């Protein structure tokens, strides 16, 4: 009952959900962290203290500033080619954020359209879409991505494509299931009784009603997408050197792990922090958007 009263006060259900979300301290904090990563990616050239591509062989494997032999101009030390790790980590966030956001948006759009069509039109459309979804779900994610990258060759666009090919499946399933429920609602029949077209009903009547689960599942998936990109780059199939990516930086430092732990560890910590923040934020979104979890 309290939830209904709250919804009535707020401008819309979405606004009420966002108010709920804002009350969740952990989720709000996590969102701030994600936003900081986004800012870091956007303003990398202004934030980075050094040129991420400039190598200085005299600084090979230089330790972080607080350790013996470090200097504050290179706060997190240098990698095997004498490049500033902090600057490379900052630039590396561009790749992670770009791929995370791009794949999420494209996959959510494609998945939502396919899910709406399958769930509303049913029949042959549903059979075709659902079978493609089943086939893609039966592939192990990383193996499929490795195979696609090996065929298409490296490059930012190809990474996005390789990940989208599998990633649209999840929003599609969610949207299809929600659409199946929504298409039986009386407001859909009312819209049909007033001469609305199928396209209109799918995009203007049903889509706004399935937006909440779509947003929740998409934000959850963004964390997985970032890990997938890091994995591909770690395996050398993702972003190509010298462009810095957290995954390839972890790979580069592997052989020096005993003597120079910072080369691999720091980009690894970045992956951990960003993915954790995204997960906590999307957890908060789900709690706020799923009425069954309302207290």
């Amino acid at each position, binding site marked *: 009952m309290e939830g209904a009263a709250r919804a009535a006060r707020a401008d*819309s259900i979405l606004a009420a959900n966002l108010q709920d979300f804002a009350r969740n301290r952990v989720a709000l904090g996590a969102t701030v962290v994600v936003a900081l990563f986004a800012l870091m990616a956007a303003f990398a050239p202004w934030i980075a203290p050094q040129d991420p591509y400039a190598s200085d062989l005299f600084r090979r494997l230089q330790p972080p500033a607080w350790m013996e032999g470090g200097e504050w101009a290179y706060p997190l030390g240098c990698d095997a080619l004498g490049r500033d790790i902090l600057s490379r980590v900052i630039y590396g966030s561009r790749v992670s954020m770009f791929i995370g956001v791009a794949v999420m948006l494209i996959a959510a759009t494609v998945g939502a359209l396919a899910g709406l069509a399958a769930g509303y039109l049913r029949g042959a459309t549903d059979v075709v879409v659902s079978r493609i979804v089943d086939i893609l779900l039966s592939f192990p994610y990383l193996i499929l991505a490795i195979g696609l990258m090996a065929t298409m060759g490296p490059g930012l666009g190809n990474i996005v494509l390789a990940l989208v090919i599998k990633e649209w499946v999840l929003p599609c399933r969610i949207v299809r299931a929600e659409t199946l429920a929504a298409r039986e609602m009386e407001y859909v029949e*009312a819209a049909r009784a007033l*001469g609305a077209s199928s396209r209109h009903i799918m995009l*203007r009547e049903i889509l706004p009603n399935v937006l909440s689960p779509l947003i929740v599942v998409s934000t959850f998936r963004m964390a997985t997408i970032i890990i997938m990109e890091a994995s591909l780059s770690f395996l050398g199939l993702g972003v190509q050197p010298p462009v810095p990516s957290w995954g390839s930086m972890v790979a580069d430092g592997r052989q020096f792990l005993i003597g120079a732990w910072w080369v691999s560890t720091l980009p690894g910590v970045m992956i951990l922090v960003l993915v954790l923040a995204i997960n906590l934020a999307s957890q908060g979104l789900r709690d706020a958007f799923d009425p069954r979890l309302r207290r």
Partner: protein
Amino acid sequence: MTPFLAIRDLRTTFHTRQGVVRAVDGVDLDVMPGECLGVVGESGSGKSVTFLSVLGLVKPPGRIESGQIRFDGRDLARLTPTELRAVRGRDIAMTMQDALTALNPALRVEEQIVETILAHDRLPRLAARSKALDMLRLLGIPDPERRIRDYPHQFSGGMRQRVMIAIALACRPRLLIADEPTTALDVTIQAQVLDLIAAMRRDLGMSVVLISHNLGVVAEHCDRVALMYAGQVVETGPTRAIIDRPRHPYTQGLLRSMPVLSDLDRPLVPIPGQVPSLVDLAPECRFLPRCGQAAPECRREIPLLSMGEAHAARCIRVAA
């Protein structure tokens, strides 16, 4: 006068696992220009399905077996889905029973009205919006400039019903089918909404089909009434004639089960028994098991028998 909408021998069936349900079984109905026709029947009598068939909105496993739906010189039962979609909303609009579930909870009222207008008219968005505001004003929604920005859950039941009627009337249809427009409302609000529909009919010069299970509601607002029972029209005629001289035992039973203000001491007599299952109906009068005046001659298909001044009933006693 030629009817505006003429339904002839409409048969709509639902193929279910239990068998073929004959939800609408040979219905003939006419709607004259500018008139209000009341369609009365219990749940499952086929009144809603009849008009869903008119608009081509019967969902599988239901389908129209046969019959003609002549509207404006065309047979709606023969139109392609695209042609039929152009008729819906533009020529014939239908409002659903429950305004709370028939309005989209995720959209502002503004979007719902404007989108309906734009679906049929090529208009600038702003013009559609001012048309929407006119509609809300016409339906007596206070402060329409502010309320148009609200979501359906922010309206009261009666206001919601008005919003739904406003959406249905947004394209100025020539025929409004109101499916139980007052069922979910308080009695006082019911009267307001019905008066409003009557006023709209006068002002916009349209015809109205009022579907209801309440003979009293219909009697007050309709020129003619058709009573439906088990998928058939059992009695049809001018409202006055039906109230004063009901000929079908079902109509008589309905009237006996309703209180009358002028005679509050009169006992109310319920109709015994229940509506028959619409699967495997025998070729006999469908009211037979519940009829107090049944005779051996009732065990055959009874046609609608006319008794003058457009009054007809599906009962052998009419001919006698």
